[in-house]
């Protein structure tokens, strides 16, 4: 697989402040990569470097086989889609007019406009002015804009901020459809639960440095966070917590949620041993396994940062 985005030891300084510090990153063709981090972690700086809006102070950036801030920019920009954070389109124009304007500027076939509006579900509102659009509709118009000219690479900066869960799911379904057609997607997000099912890999940034990079499985292994196991017995009969109180493994913690339900914190390698005992315990009716979520992983990896670094917002 070829790397669509290739960062080699990229540092970007603004004044004395290191926005990005020796970042190495390869994003492969056809994957959805999430960029996670607190405010000022370097997510937007990374995007701007990929877009060629900024040049690296040190190191090398290559996007689709060339430096985005040089002569390659012209060709690159026609094969790239970008949805900035907080963009408000020309309110006086209708959705179709906005998209038509951007299609002309990108020099793509304007026949795409209607098709794209339908694809993001704005076909019925195409002739209405953007002024009358809801937040979700504006965001979908932004996505349609980013999709002009069938881009090979899609950059989405906080694309679902302010969207309701259903709209978020719709949005990511569209993104996944694009990935399946071979488009590479890089997205940044604060809303971790929404994004989790849709991403292939995640890059966790903190204070301009790479804290972790990998698929969810890889990140879970690296973090070795305990799994939460919940067991429930039927009725109010039996003291479940009492019966499950003693474990040989000292790492296993137990807490009673209520009379007939307990929660166990189990290290990954002890998972099966715990499950075996639970299935053998009389009265246990239901067992629920909760692996650490992206949110837990994120908290784990960014815990290495000092509070000052985390509060170091833009």
């Amino acid at each position: 697989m070829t790397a669509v985005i290739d960062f080699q030891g990229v540092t970007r300084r603004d004044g004395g402040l290191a926005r990005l510090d020796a970042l190495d990153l390869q994003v492969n063709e056809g994957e959805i990569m999430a960029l996670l981090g607190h405010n000022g972690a370097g997510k937007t700086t990374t995007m701007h470097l990929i877009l060629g809006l900024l040049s690296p102070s040190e190191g090398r950036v290559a996007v689709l086989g060339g430096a985005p801030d040089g002569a390659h920019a012209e060709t690159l920009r026609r094969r790239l889609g970008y949805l900035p954070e907080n963009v408000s389109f020309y309110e006086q124009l209708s959705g179709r007019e906005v998209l038509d304007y951007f299609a002309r500027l990108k020099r793509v076939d304007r026949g795409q406009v209607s098709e794209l509006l339908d694809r993001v579900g704005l076909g019925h509102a195409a002739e209405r002015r953007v002024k009358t659009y809801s937040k979700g509709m504006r965001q979908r118009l932004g996505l349609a804009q980013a999709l002009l000219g069938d881009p090979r690479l899609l950059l989405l900066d906080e694309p679902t901020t302010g969207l309701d869960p259903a709209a978020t799911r719709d949005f990511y379904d569209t993104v996944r459809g694009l990935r399946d057609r071979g488009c590479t997607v890089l997205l940044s997000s604060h809303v971790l639960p929404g994004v989790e099912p849709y991403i292939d890999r995640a890059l966790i940034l903190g204070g301009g440095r790479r804290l972790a990079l990998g698929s969810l499985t890889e990140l879970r292994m690296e973090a070795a966070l305990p799994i939460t196991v919940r067991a429930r017995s039927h009725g109010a009969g039996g003291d479940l917590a009492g019966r499950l109180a003693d474990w040989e493994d000292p790492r296993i913690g137990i807490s009673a949620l209520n009379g007939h339900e307990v929660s166990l914190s189990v290290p990954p390698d002890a998972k099966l041993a715990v499950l075996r005992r639970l299935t053998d315990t009389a009265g246990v009716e239901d067992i629920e396994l909760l692996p650490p979520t992206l949110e837990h992983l994120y908290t784990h990896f960014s815990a290495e940062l000092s509070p000052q670094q985390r509060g170091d917002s833009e």
Partner: protein
Amino acid sequence: MNAILTIAGKEFRDGMRNRWVLAIALVLAFLAVGIAWFGAAASGGLGFTSLATTVVSLATLAVFLIPLIALLLAFDAVVGEQEAGTLLLLLTYPISRTQLLLGKFLGHGLILGAATALGFSVAGAVIAVGAEGVALGELAHGMGLLIGSSILLGWVFIAFAYLISVCVSEKARAAGLALVVWFLFVLVFDLGLLALLVSVERGGDWLPWLLLLNPAECFRLINLAGFEAARSYSGLTSIAESGVFRPAMVTAILVAWIAAPLGLALLRFRRRTA
């Protein structure tokens, strides 16, 4: 080139849609007709006085209004898109910053040009129909000169507005600076010149040259000197007989007044980081 036209077309359509063109044309036509009609009010009469008085009055009106309209129209050209977030997006499109700014200039220039031509033409037509004994040829000449030079003056201040717009990062600050520019060139400069004129006792041959330092004064020179009948009304423009102060030269200087701030704005826009 295509991108420039696309951007210009969009700006112009915006101008039509939010009724800038209509509003400017109406204001100019309304005030111009008013001035023509109440031209004799100072002498206690009512009605059209003479073409010369009217043209001088209209030029004085334009020198106040046109720069203000141009600045209001264009001060948020760049900073407005920056605040909306669309500038960042446009900069990732396959268009250059020069194309972006020139396209906007073309669009705003057309808005102002169309509105000025429309407004003053309506006024000219009303005068031609309503006033008695006005020489149509002279009227057309005077109004044509007024319209042409007004458009140039407007473009100068659009260029100034862009320079402001690329230098600041907040819309409110751009608006404030635009008003300062208007104040300086349209009001303060005149007062300063008057003060100088009074305080300089001997010599002072160089004083007329100072007029060229202000595009608004250039505009006045063109209109007062370019229209023969108006010369008698304006002592200052007796200098317009020769040399640099001929209308053609002053027009060239006015064009330079467009190029300079626009060039600076382009330089600044290309150099700054997104």
